[in-house]
């Protein structure tokens, strides 16, 4: 085997499924250090917010736990995590190889002494909207950000903590784990390669004015549905609608909410069909009287995913309507929703009544906005297409991408793209 240039580490921006997978693939294959820079206070990214993965319908934790185990066992500490951190500057190194990176890490108020005993949160008086559950419930200002948080410790929300005027959490912590006077860190690194694994966020469906998200309480998004279905979610796994916490059965799933729309996201987000089929099955599993209806343009379930579609179709209580919804209005008395839609197969226009509407929000690439916040040396080539995805790998410069930074991908394909990025990094560092 050729020798690897391991003088400088690899920078991976984003600690979601793709970033972690790429880090593991690199460190398990060659002796090279990797830094993962993650904006959130924990590693794992969006997959942790899923109730189940398709097509096997297993919870995300099993796969994530295997990754954590791999991180702990086989890589001999070669993966370093910088949580609550953002890359500020990327400059070419003077000697012509690699990059100088400036990273800003938010104050780490809680150190590794934390045992997640939870006494601090009990003492805390301030509430914050819980972004992990898409603001559908609240946590204290000192909180455990996710159920399988890694690194496993509490975190403090700066926007809601009262700091020196309160300090109740510091007083009750028995392990000296809290220091509310902590300062932010500036970390400077020299790296050989960069992998953008910056992931995605759900499209802001409020822009789809006709569909009433933000106006009508019972219009939610697919990512919120995952949290409603999840046992560790705001409703403990019961699918209750926001307006009156009623258990719902007649739920309308509206596909392509933003995706395949030239006024919004011109591309197909690839995962929403499978996600809605999966969520229709959640409903069926949790409520035997439920009748989910999927409003679609065409259902995209390529390859073996077709079996999953067949499984959903064979359930006679799951209805399908070819034709997407043009307008939604609300019955103010009941909170039910009225959908204006054409049933294309019969050629009739109908008013469909639903207890709750789930919009299949498309995937919007984070990289598009993230790059605005990073000062990048003019000579560094990062090709972004018109939709905000990185479309070109920079093999010469050692700049690669993985996961949804490239294009809309599901978890499985993100893993593959991470392997591909890892392989590119290794090839880039082979000593000739």
């Amino acid at each position, binding site marked *: 085997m050729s020798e690897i240039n391991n003088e400088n580490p690899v920078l991976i921006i984003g600690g979601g499924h793709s970033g972690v997978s790429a880090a593991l693939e690199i460190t398990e294959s060659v002796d090279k250090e990797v830094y993962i820079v993650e904006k959130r206070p924990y590693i794992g990214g969006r997959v942790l917010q899923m109730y189940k993965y398709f097509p096997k319908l297993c919870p995300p934790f099993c796969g994530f736990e295997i990754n954590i185990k791999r991180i702990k066992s086989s890589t001999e500490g070669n993966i370093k995590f910088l949580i609550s951190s953002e890359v500020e500057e990327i400059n070419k190194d003077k000697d012509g190889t690699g990059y100088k990176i400036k990273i800003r890490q938010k104050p780490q108020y809680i150190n590794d002494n934390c045992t997640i005993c939870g006494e601090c949160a009990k003492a805390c008086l301030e509430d914050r909207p819980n972004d992990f559950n898409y603001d559908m419930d609240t946590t204290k200002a000192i909180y455990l950000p996710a159920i399988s948080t890694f690194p496993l410790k509490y975190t403090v929300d700066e926007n809601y903590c009262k700091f020196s005027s309160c300090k109740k959490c510091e007083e009750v912590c028995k392990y000296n784990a809290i220091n509310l006077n902590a300062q932010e860190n500036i970390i400077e690194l020299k790296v050989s390669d960069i992998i953008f694994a910056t992931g995605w966020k759900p499209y802001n469906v409020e822009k789809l004015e*006709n569909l009433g998200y933000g106006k009508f309480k019972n219009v939610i998004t697919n990512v919120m549905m995952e949290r409603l279905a999840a046992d560790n979610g705001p409703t403990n796994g019961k699918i209750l609608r926001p307006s009156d916490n009623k258990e719902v059965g007649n739920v309308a799933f509206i596909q*392509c909410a933003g995706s*395949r*729309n*030239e*006024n*919004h996201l011109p591309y197909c987000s690839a995962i929403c069909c499978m996600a809605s089929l999966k969520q229709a099955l959640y409903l069926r599993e949790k409520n035997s009287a439920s009748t989910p209806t999927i409003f679609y*343009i*065409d259902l995209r379930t390529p390859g073996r995913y077709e079996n999953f579609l067949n499984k959903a179709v064979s359930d006679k209580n799951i209805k399908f309507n*070819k*034709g*997407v*919804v*043009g*307008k939604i209005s609300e019955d103010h008395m009941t909170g039910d929703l009225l959908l*204006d*839609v*054409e049933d*294309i197969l019969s*050629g*009739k*226009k*109908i008013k469909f009544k639903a207890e709750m509407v789930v919009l299949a929000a498309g995937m919007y690439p984070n990289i598009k906005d993230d790059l605005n916040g990073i000062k990048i040396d003019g000579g560094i080539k990062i090709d972004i297409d018109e939709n905000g995805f990185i479309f070109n790998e920079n093999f010469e410069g050692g700049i690669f991408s993985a996961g949804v930074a490239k294009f809309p991908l599901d978890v499985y394909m993100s893993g593959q793209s991470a392997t591909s990025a890892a392989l590119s990094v290794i090839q880039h560092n082979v000593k000739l």
Partner: protein
Amino acid sequence: MKNTVIKTDNELIEYINEVGESNFKKCFQCGTCSAVCPLSTEDRPFPRKEMILAGWGMKEQLVSDLDPWLCYYCGECSKNCPRKAEPGELMMSLRRFLISAYDWTGISKILYKSKYAEYIAILIVALGVLIEWAVLFGLHPAAGATLEQAVSPDKIDYFFDWPITVFLGVMLTSFIYNMFRKTVLSDRGVKIPLKLYFTEGWSLMFNFFTQYRYAKCDDSEESSSKKLATGKYNFWLTHLFLVISYVILFVGIVFFLDWFQAENSLPYLHIILFDYFASIGLIFGTVYFVIKRLTKKIERSKFSHHTDWMFVILLFLTGVSGIILRAAIVYNFPVSSIFYIYIVHLMILFPMLVIEVPFSKWSHLAYRPVAIYFANLKEKAKSLNNVEIS
């Protein structure tokens, strides 16, 4: 299931493409347009159906389709179309196609395809008018002649007014019969009882004189007074004002031409109805639509075909030259000036009538209310049949 052979027509696809700016080939049949349409009905929603019929060139279905006439280009479909395929503009293109499909002479098709053909046709008619005038009255008025001697109203009646009325009457009637044949008679699924033709007649009149469908474009829950105050009825009311003005002038000039040339027995009625109301309506309306077409701010004025421009410009010029002519008569201009203004006025008016009325955009004035009438007939007949069966 019975197998049906779908006949498609590539030339038709090209023609629809030529006479409008819809990207109907981009349509992926999501159904958003039909769902948001404030005018389409539950039983036969449009324009999603027309998008695929046009995309596939399904001539038979398109020719028998009344729905393009029921569309008033509110623009909700185009605004919400995820493919920017412009379904509203497709319905406009289909109206242009249908005008040429009802016209058995084939003239419409040529005029819609080429703006030069339209210019030439207008020039030919204008020259024809000039020649006819020269034969009847000469190119200069005789010295000392009164207006009645120089331009005899009787001769205008015999050689201009009545022939054009007969011509337009024959043309439009035959085209509308053609439309009836293609849209109503061809539909074997419905038999229309004779009685319905009379009982549904009100819808024809109602829609012609109110054009109420324009008002239905805005289906928000606001009150009518609020819609009026916020300008949501502006387009409808302006269009209605223009149509009523046009009809008043048309009827007045065809049947009571004497009134315009000499003193008449009801001077105040004349002044209020023709000199003020109808003249203002014609000028205000045409200027309003030209401004809308130039600013392109609302969906239905975003795209302008050469026939749209020609229609509104000819109508405006007809109005302006007519007002000048009337003013010249009222204010006792020299007979020679009136004589020349008269020629110019007719050279604008006749191309407007001969070209625009049967063969081009004017014809929507006839087809729109007739289509609503036919659609009502079919719908009523169907519901009657259903009652009988059940």
